[in-house]
């Protein structure tokens, strides 16, 4: 082998090693990065099936959602979520008791608004927890 070919094969080997390392690093980082949302419980607000907002239950807040369908005022207070007011005809969302546990849902059907309590922490949702609420 000429010295030119020898050094070429070593360089190629180094390239492959570098690429392999990058792949491994990417595979390790990807799942970590994709799960870096808010820790703990939060309320997912969806409009017509699309994610509109996420509200941490840790912070008291008021969110007014106005669309062509109508207006709903969502309140997070004391780790619970409720709909304080709305201009839908049946007010079922307003009459609904505040929700706070993973899986609980308040729906405003006329406005296509869905509020779901979610938890990022799988440990909270382990044994003994509730899979569904009959209501």
């Amino acid at each position, binding site marked *: 082998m000429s010295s030119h070919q020898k050094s070429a094969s070593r360089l190629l080997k180094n*390239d492959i090693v570098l690429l392999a390392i990058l792949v491994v690093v990417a595979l390790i980082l990807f799942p970590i990065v994709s799960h870096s949302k808010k820790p703990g419980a939060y309320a997912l607000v969806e409009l017509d099936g699309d994610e509109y907002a996420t509200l941490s239950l840790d912070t008291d807040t008021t969110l007014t959602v106005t669309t062509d369908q109508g207006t709903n005022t969502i309140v997070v207070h004391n780790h619970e979520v409720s709909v304080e007011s709305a201009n839908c005809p049946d007010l079922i969302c307003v009459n609904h008791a505040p929700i706070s546990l993973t899986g609980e849902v308040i729906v405003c059907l006329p406005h*296509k608004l869905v509020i779901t309590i979610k938890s990022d922490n799988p440990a909270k949702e382990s044994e003994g927890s509730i899979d569904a*609420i009959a209501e």
Partner: protein
Amino acid sequence: MIRKNIKYYALAALVIITVAVALCLRLWGGTETTYETSFFAMDTYMSVKGTGTDAQGAVEAVRDAIIGLDGDLSVTNSKSLVYELNENGSCTADSDMEYLIDKSLYAGELTDGAFNICIYPIMREWGFTTGEFKVPEASVLSALCSNLASSEVTSNTQDKSVHLSEGTMIDFGGIAKGYATKVAVDILNGKYIKSALINLGGNVYALGKKPDGSLWNVAVKSPDDSMKYLGILSISDKAVITSGGYERYFEEGGVTYHHIIDPSTGYPADSGAKSVTVVSSDPTLADALSTAIFVMGRDKATTLWRENSSLFDFIYYDNSGNLYITEGIKDEFSSEISFEIIEK
């Protein structure tokens, strides 16, 4: 220059290796997946979750079937079969309507009329169907009740024709979600889904067991602010359906009027029940019974249950805060409050 080409080859090799690894993981990780979908139908929010080899196909088939059913059963949709029946007083039933009429008449007999699909004109008068709530005139309700008492639905099993007597209009609202659940379960079973959780606006069906082999935990919502749940059921292959006045009501003149109308009076049922939950492997029947028991009250419901204890169980919470369960579910039910077991 040679190095550049090799670099591209290396990159290509990398991509191929990554894809190959991903595929292998997919195969070695087992062929079962869990798929969940949520959608609006029958005036409520629904979600279906299933685990199996074709979970996505099965769950989406369920969603499509329920949305189709919604269109077919809607009283307000002029294209629905029910609308045609109510408009013309007759129609040719499809298999869904056949099943529903059959089951509805059966539930009506079982409950002595406490469940009655002919209640539609009364529901409409109160505004529960349109959202324009009002307390009807007593004379109007009285006339509607006599009308209801003489309402008849007849179906011919040979030519599938259905006839309504004069002035009769039906609404499957009190049984539709239960039937949709049955349709969903049939589809999931047909696609070999052994583990699923169906939630149709609070009507829950737990199919099989959870993917980890444990029973499904279904909580029963409490109508009171003082506690979240009346209790939790650990179940498999059962429907859990709750009825309560607190779900839909309006206030007028300081009085609360809820949507569970007693067919014999035309007014919201006043039997002492605050929340009734029926547990059964027959979701259609469970839906009808949950409404009926709320109208009947605990004593009549207990008599009914003692004669049919293999068909269903129920949980009864009354206006005084007392909780009762029938003994068929005593091993499945747990609660933070005390409850009495109704024995056979």
